């Protein structure tokens, strides 16, 4: 049954396969029971896709775990409400043994991180067979053939070969396909997908979402999808349930929600979503001189093997990359995971050994001693992706912001305290928060602290490595605004590393696209994002989900050629791309399919 048949406009009433009524969950904490989910009610109708959308801590995953009977025991328990299947089976009071019969056969689930959901020491084939045999779906003799059929069903290339491979031999997208194959092995009525594409690259995400839709059409599976990404919601959902701190805020058909959100929260949430194409105007940077000048940068990591543990091959993480950034300018570095964009960020701070030339305000980074490097680092600092991991949990945040000043001997005593107080105010925090520890802050506040620490030395260049990727959209918008203000006032140059095209559209003056350690295309934001010339860039852009259910994204472009590898035998290397200038400032690597920009 296709989702279209469930349109309210048609005569037949939607048939719920799962009903949740007044679901309330409490979690035991040292300070007593805490209600984490309060009075959630919804119906999941046959064949539709219902999205539970919300920011972190909204209780969306908790809801899914309750349906699957996977709530963390004994801390969490259902204190009120019911979860029932279409035939009246009540799920909220099942024992573990009873749940085992329901899972996989009637409801299955796929998770965010496919690598941790698969057993690393079992082949894909035996993991599939295990599920089939566990639930008596076939005899042991039939299992291999059935497993192969399942893999073909999820459109994995070379399915026969994959059966004999181990999870680490597959790419992230393939692993998630395997997880879907396992989830669908017993042909369940309901598939719960908890952030199934969050850990995947945008092109792979588009393919996996397409696969889920296709399987849904073929099998008539009902999908309950959990996501924080409003783009994914717009693309996948028939109906949406917006959740916030354990309560349901708004339930509506997807088009209605995006067109006329009824609650303030849903309105604010949708307003905060960065959209590709609505790029704010950017002030003209001062291009008279460059504050950062990178020339022919290469980073190679040796791979040792053999009896004598000699270097036999190199990972060419970054290969012959050059770019310049002017004061007050933002260059965005985009590419899929493993393309070398983060390695460039580390090389700029002298954290990985590199070749070529990196000049920060005229001072060389490559090949200089520790003392010289320390001086350069006063002018270039970095803000990492995960603010929780980049703060020391055992030190007060005030002490951590003060550290750069101490390390460089810039301030001591009351002067130091004054400087730190000033930095706290600068990033929108109050000085009385200085004596607290990182765990007492929210994610957005922690990122503000990291920014304050990076600003302590008054650097001229900031490397922002996925600095807003781990934040909820509303907080993300606030942090981006802070970064913009700081840039305007201090004439900071940003190297903004990100995989999120929509965010890049908000912040960048120029964009550089990378793949396998090399730069494929670079130019102004308008040139690269509106007139992409290289097939790789075009494919990347075609995969970005559009947070608007009325505009259907065309199917993602096919991959141009084979997926390469950055590993080369010693003495060999990748073929260098020649960059051609196709328009003023718009450089593109030569490729047979490269289009001339208009």
């Amino acid at each position: 049954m296709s989702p279209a048949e469930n349109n309210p406009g048609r005569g037949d009433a939607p048939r719920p396969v799962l009903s949740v009524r007044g679901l309330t969950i409490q979690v035991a904490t040292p300070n007593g029971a805490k209600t984490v989910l309060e009075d959630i009610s919804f119906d999941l109708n046959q064949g539709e896709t219902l999205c539970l959308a919300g920011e972190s801590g909204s209780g969306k995953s908790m809801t899914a775990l309750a349906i699957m009977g996977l709530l963390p025991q004994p801390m969490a328990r259902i204190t009120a409400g019911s979860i029932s299947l279409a035939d009246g089976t009540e799920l909220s009071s099942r024992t573990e043994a009873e749940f085992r019969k329901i899972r996989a056969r009637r409801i299955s689930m796929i998770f965010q991180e496919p690598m941790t959901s698969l057993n690393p020491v079992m082949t894909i084939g035996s993991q599939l067979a295990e599920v089939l045999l566990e639930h008596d779906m076939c005899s042991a003799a039939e299992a291999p053939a059935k497993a192969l059929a399942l893999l073909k069903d999820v459109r994995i290339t070379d399915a026969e070969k994959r059966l004999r491979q181990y999870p680490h031999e597959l790419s992230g997208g393939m692993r998630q396909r395997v997880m879907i194959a396992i989830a669908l092995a017993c042909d369940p009525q309901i598939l719960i997908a908890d952030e199934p594409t969050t850990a995947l690259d945008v092109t792979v995400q588009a393919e996996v979402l397409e696969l889920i839709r296709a399987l849904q059409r073929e099998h008539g599976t009902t999908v309950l999808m959990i996501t924080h990404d409003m783009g994914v919601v717009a693309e996948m959902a028939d109906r949406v349930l917006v959740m916030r701190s354990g309560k349901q805020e708004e339930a509506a058909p997807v088009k209605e929600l995006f067109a006329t959100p009824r609650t303030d929260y849903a309105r604010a949430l949708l307003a905060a979503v960065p959209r590709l194409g609505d790029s704010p105007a950017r002030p003209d940077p001062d291009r008279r001189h460059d504050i950062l000048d990178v020339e022919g940068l290469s980073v190679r990591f040796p791979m040792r093997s053999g009896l004598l543990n000699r270097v036999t091959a190199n990972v060419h993480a970054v290969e012959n990359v050059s770019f310049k950034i002017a004061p007050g300018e933002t260059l965005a570095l985009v590419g899929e995971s493993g393309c070398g964009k983060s390695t460039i960020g580390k090389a700029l701070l002298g954290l990985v050994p590199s070749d070529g030339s990196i000049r920060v305000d005229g001072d060389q980074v490559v090949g200089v001693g520790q003392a010289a490097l320390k001086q350069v680092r006063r002018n270039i600092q970095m803000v990492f992706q995960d603010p929780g991991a980049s703060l020391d949990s055992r030190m007060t945040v005030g002490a951590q912001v003060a550290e750069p000043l101490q390390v460089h001997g810039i301030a001591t005593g009351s002067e130091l305290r004054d400087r730190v107080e000033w930095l706290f105010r600068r990033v929108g925090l109050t000085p009385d928060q200085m004596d607290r520890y990182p765990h007492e802050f929210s994610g957005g506040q922690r990122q503000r602290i990291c920014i304050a620490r990076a600003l302590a030395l008054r650097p001229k260049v900031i490397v922002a490595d996925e600095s807003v990727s781990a934040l909820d959209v509303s907080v993300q918008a606030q942090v981006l605004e802070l970064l913009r203000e700081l840039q305007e006032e201090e004439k900071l140059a940003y190297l903004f590393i990100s995989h999120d095209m929509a965010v890049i559209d908000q912040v960048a003056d120029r964009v550089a696209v990378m793949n396998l350690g090399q730069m494929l295309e670079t130019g102004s934001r308008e040139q690269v994002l509106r007139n992409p010339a290289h097939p790789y860039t075009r494919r990347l852009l075609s995969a970005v989900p559009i947070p608007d259910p009325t505009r259907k994204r065309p199917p993602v472009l096919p991959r141009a050629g084979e997926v390469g590898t950055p590993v080369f035998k010693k003495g060999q290397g990748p073929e260098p791309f020649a960059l051609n200038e196709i328009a003023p400032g718009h450089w593109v690597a030569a490729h047979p399919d490269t289009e001339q920009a208009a």
Partner: protein
Amino acid sequence: MNTETTNVPDQPATAKRHPAKAVLLAILKRPQSAFGLIVIVAMVLAAVLAPWIVPYDPNDQMFDGLSLEGAPLPPSAKFWLGTDLLGRDLFSRLVLGTQTSLIIGVLANGIAVVLGATVGIVAGYFGGVVAAVLMRITDLMMAFPALLLAIVLAAIFKPSLLIVALVIAMVNWVQMARVVYTETRSMAQRDFIEVQRAMGASAPRILIRHILPHLIYSIIVFGTLGISTTVLLEATLSYLGVGVQPPTPSWGNIIFENQTYFANAPWLVFFPGLAIVLLALSFNLLGDALRDALDPKLKGRH
């Protein structure tokens, strides 16, 4: 919308107390750790005040300390913990033995912890050749029979309390080095350490201010567990004649002198054994409390 609110209410003013005082308060608040602290303080006092609190001369082989058949006496009002094979008062010997055992336990273990943690943290942070050399030495020490090494070392140097402590430390530091090495390695790749490198902090600064505080958990757990092995290793050395020389009592050599009579005079093994267990347990409980008191995430939870 403003989702950036702290989930923790303002801390009460008591959090501003002097850190040492706050730690002591945290220890005394929990019955387990308060017990540990009291036992340790009592043992230290017993060791220091031993000459004044023992009821009998610990080395005096008393006539009335043996039964008419010449067997040791069980605990009684006169001899609180009974007497040993030579008619010496067990309680007096145990109290005097506290000196030796505490010194060995704390000193030997202290040296082992410092040495092991230093080797582990340096090898773990710097990696490469430094790690290869240091960890091969550690492996070598691990593969070498510990007792044999102790005997050889003790035989070369004239047995004394300090030498015995050093010998035991030489044997015991390797486990600590291994644990600290592994933890430091994973720690060194964490973002907040990378941030330190990026800001230009020196290696000693990173190691002491940022890595060491995170290793406290393992160091305390392994450090306190090491105390009982240390006390027992001292006993083994005494037994083999290369440890503390008789008639100076230590808990270990009291057990070894009397172990063959366990069936007839169980108190001779039971009480010194209990003393060792109490010492190790107390350090363990105290260590746990110390670890929690130093963890900002657990502040004010108990």
